[in-house]
């Protein structure tokens, strides 16, 4: 497959399965950039940057230093009512988080290596709304740490929680990260986007297909 031309620059071809993630040439950084929206995952072995903006959502940046293949996800667990317990978390709410983590890890390991090779960095989970009845960000953080703990995968760096949204830049083939905490002027857009995502997975769950042979 050939690359994709944009602004006279050739973006490297995306890996199979990640064609739907929006990419562009970042002039300032002079690099092909994938812009990750809530619910998306992107994996690359090219000289690329993955950019996302996190409110209460969480992103895991994972890379295998042996293959230089890495990627990022961006997810949030669905919001639940006051009756939400660990039981419902196991039963349904965790499935998007489990999926986002598993897809990212599997795609990286498809190019070789095992879970113990992985270098993991975690970001996001801010308490960006004062009037939140529950701290959604904290729930997302707790989930991702618990997931990695159960898998026996170490976290080498993290910047989570607090009250700020974050702009995250990740370079999957080197593992470098740049995080910037955003001021409140940007918060409305981020909160709106995350609320739309939450509503979307609530009203039209992104369940996989079932095929009987």
């Amino acid at each position, binding site marked *: 497959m050939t690359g994709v031309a944009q602004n006279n620059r050739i973006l490297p071809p995306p890996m199979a399965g990640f064609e739907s993630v929006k990419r562009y040439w970042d002039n300032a950084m002079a690099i092909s950039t994938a812009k990750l929206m809530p619910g998306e995952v992107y994996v690359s072995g090219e000289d690329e940057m993955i950019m996302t903006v996190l409110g209460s959502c969480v992103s895991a940046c994972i890379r295998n230093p042996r293959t230089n293949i890495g990627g990022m996800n961006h997810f949030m667990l669905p919001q639940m009512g006051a009756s939400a317990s660990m039981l419902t978390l196991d039963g349904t709410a965790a*499935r998007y988080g*489990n999926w986002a*983590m598993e897809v990212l890890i599997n795609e990286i390991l498809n190019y070789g290596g095992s*879970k113990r090779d992985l270098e993991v960095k975690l970001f996001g989970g801010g308490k960006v709304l004062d009037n939140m009845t529950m701290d959604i960000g904290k729930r997302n953080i707790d989930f991702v740490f618990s997931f990695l703990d159960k898998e026996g995968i170490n976290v080498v760096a993290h910047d989570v929680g607090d009250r700020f949204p974050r702009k995250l830049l990740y370079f999957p083939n080197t593992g470098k990260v740049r995080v910037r905490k955003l001021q409140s002027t940007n918060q409305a857009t981020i909160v709106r986007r995350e609320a739309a995502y939450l509503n979307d997975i609530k009203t039209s769950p992104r*369940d*996989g*297909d*079932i*095929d009987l*042979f």
Partner: protein
Amino acid sequence: MTKILAVDDSASMRQMVVFTLQSAGYDVVEASDGQKALDIAKGTSFDLVLSDVNMPVMDGIELVKELRQIEAYKYTPILMLTTETAGDKKMAGKNAGATGWVVKPFNPDKLLATIKKVTG
């Protein structure tokens, strides 16, 4: 009671799958890779095997091939539960003898309905 062997290398995923199956009244045994599942399956009989595809040691496709060699598992329903949507992997699962292909994230009710259908 219907007995299910649930195979997944992800502990978090296994926890969710087991919770879903046990809530519906199934008797569930877990395994964390294909080889362990095969060893367990040889010692006990199951009414259904629900297996992930990408796993270390022995993957799900290899597990299906191995199970189909065993007389007791020739016709046992085997559902693959995976994040894989690629057609070639699915075809490999079908050719190995899997009964069905369920893509994660799974809807618990739909998964249970499918299990009921293939074990009924």
